């Protein structure tokens, strides 16, 4: 089931360094939410705090609330491992497991919970996920080959297939197309569009057109000054953001009159 995420007054730290300050927003279920903003303003940091990947870095911590289903993700009774299974992530650079085949890569997450999945069920999951990631037709004849043998765009879609194979409720994507060529980028964008019907998708992008093309809502992050924490300037429906933004800073950034 796709879920919505409520963020309330979130501060994010690396040790003593406050990287992101005072973010509040509501990410709607079954929609695509895009984050834009200059480099270093904390988009990735914020995204990683939505599935508790942030705390993997030594010394990293957050203050504030991230609510999913009326439950705070950072409540002590919540298991971060479970959070990450429910809220999947796709990274900037494709990262299939190098020692595994395409087939095994797709199943990597499922195997964690269900070691002895029957062959037929496993085949179903692989096919469904690869179809979901628009990759099935390209790889169905070489499922036993290493995942590293695919092209960059195919690898990234394999990673998306791996992420959706465990049927998460939310899919976080951190600049998923920045390492891809335009054709692969178009393929991934189509895929995002398709996935929207079943997942809540949050995507960080550097590409304004991409944000405009794929997202329903957009958040603009910015830095007040170098060394200061990043913050959310504006969060609005994408249409409004790109035609009639609330903040002059947003307008400046979007129209390229920035920095």
């Amino acid at each position, binding site marked *: 089931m796709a879920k919505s995420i409520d963020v309330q007054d979130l501060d994010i730290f690396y040790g003593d360094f406050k990287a992101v300050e005072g973010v509040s927003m509501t990410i709607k279920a079954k929609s695509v939410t895009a984050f834009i903003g200059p480099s270093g303003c904390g988009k990735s940091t914020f995204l990683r705090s939505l599935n508790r990947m942030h705390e993997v870095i030594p010394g990293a911590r957050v203050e504030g609330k991230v609510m999913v289903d009326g439950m705070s993700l950072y409540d002590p009774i919540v298991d971060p491992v479970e959070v990450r299974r429910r809220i999947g992530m796709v990274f900037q650079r494709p990262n299939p497991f190098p020692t595994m085949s395409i087939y095994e890569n797709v199943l990597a*997450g499922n195997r964690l919970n269900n070691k002895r999945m029957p062959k037929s069920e496993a085949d179903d999951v692989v096919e469904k996920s690869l179809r979901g990631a628009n990759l099935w037709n390209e790889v169905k004849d070489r499922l036993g080959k290493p995942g590293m043998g695919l092209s960059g765009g195919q690898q990234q879609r394999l990673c998306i297939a791996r992420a959706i194979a*465990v049927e998460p409720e939310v899919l976080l994507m951190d600049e998923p197309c920045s390492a891809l060529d335009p054709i692969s980028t178009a393929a991934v964008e189509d895929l995002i569009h398709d996935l929207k019907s079943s997942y809540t998708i949050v995507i960080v992008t550097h590409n304004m057109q991409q944000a405009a093309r794929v997202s329903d809502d957009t958040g603009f992050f910015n830095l007040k000054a170098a060394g200061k924490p990043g913050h959310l300037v504006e969060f609005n429906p994408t249409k409004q953001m790109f035609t009639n933004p609330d903040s002059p800073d947003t307008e400046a950034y979007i129209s390229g009159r920035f920095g």
Partner: protein
Amino acid sequence: MSTGSSLTPPPAVSARRGRLALGDRVFAASARGAGLLILLALAGVFVFLLIQGIPGLSVDPKEYGQGFETFWQYVGPLLFGTIFISLLALIVAVPFALAVALFISHYAPRRLATPVAYVIDLLAAVPSVVFGLWGGRALSQALKPVINWLGDYLNWIPLFKGPASPNGQTALTAALVLGVMILPIITAISREVFAQTPRLNEEAAIGLGATRWEVIRLAVLPYAKSGVIAGIMLGLGRALGETMAVTMVYSSSPKYMLNIIGDTSPQTIAANIANNYAEASADKQHVLIAAGLVLFAFTFVVNFIARWAIGRGERKLAR
């Protein structure tokens, strides 16, 4: 010696270049010579051991002792003992070495990891004769009850057939000491390959909702396999050649046997050499050197495989 000023006017060049080129040639040649000398030294190890060892293959059988007729009858049980004790040491060391390597690379808090790595290096710096002294005098005393217990209750296992040695100075003790000695080697290499696993793959596993152990199983261990194997082989190489810890900790004789808690246990090649070199006649010296050659050849093969595995791992990663 010329002072090689930077901008030499053209007329002087030719004379000067001759001298400089000579300097360069001499230096390059001596660097190359040093490299060749190392090759020569390694070849020399083989050649001299061969020259002095080959006569040992055909000496008067009484030099082999124990009623052995030929050199191979004599060296067989020693080679068995060497491999046997070394494998026992590996069984002791490998699980702990890998666990400690993981501890340093993935489990320990940052502040602890560096000092722990240093402590393990310290373990590697302790001279083997001190390990031997400790094994023979302290560890053996402490192990007496354990050895008695093994002899009483587990004597149906051939390794613990007994009768248990009353002084604790057994092959089991030596295997433990050897295990401690080779642990730092295996740990050092494994810890390096564990730390080299790409962060991206670990993040992929974390993002799928893997626990820390599952991250290690998914993204660290498969990647580190050949490096770990190489580390184990290097540890084995070290154990095969270790002399003092074995010589000082238990009394041994060249026999095929499995009992490791008795008064006497299988002897290793290194211990055989160390025990007999002192009162060796010229003939016996040849025999001992021949035995040393066998040990060398064997460790050479083991190390060769280890290096090859490391190289293969690196090539695989480079792809």
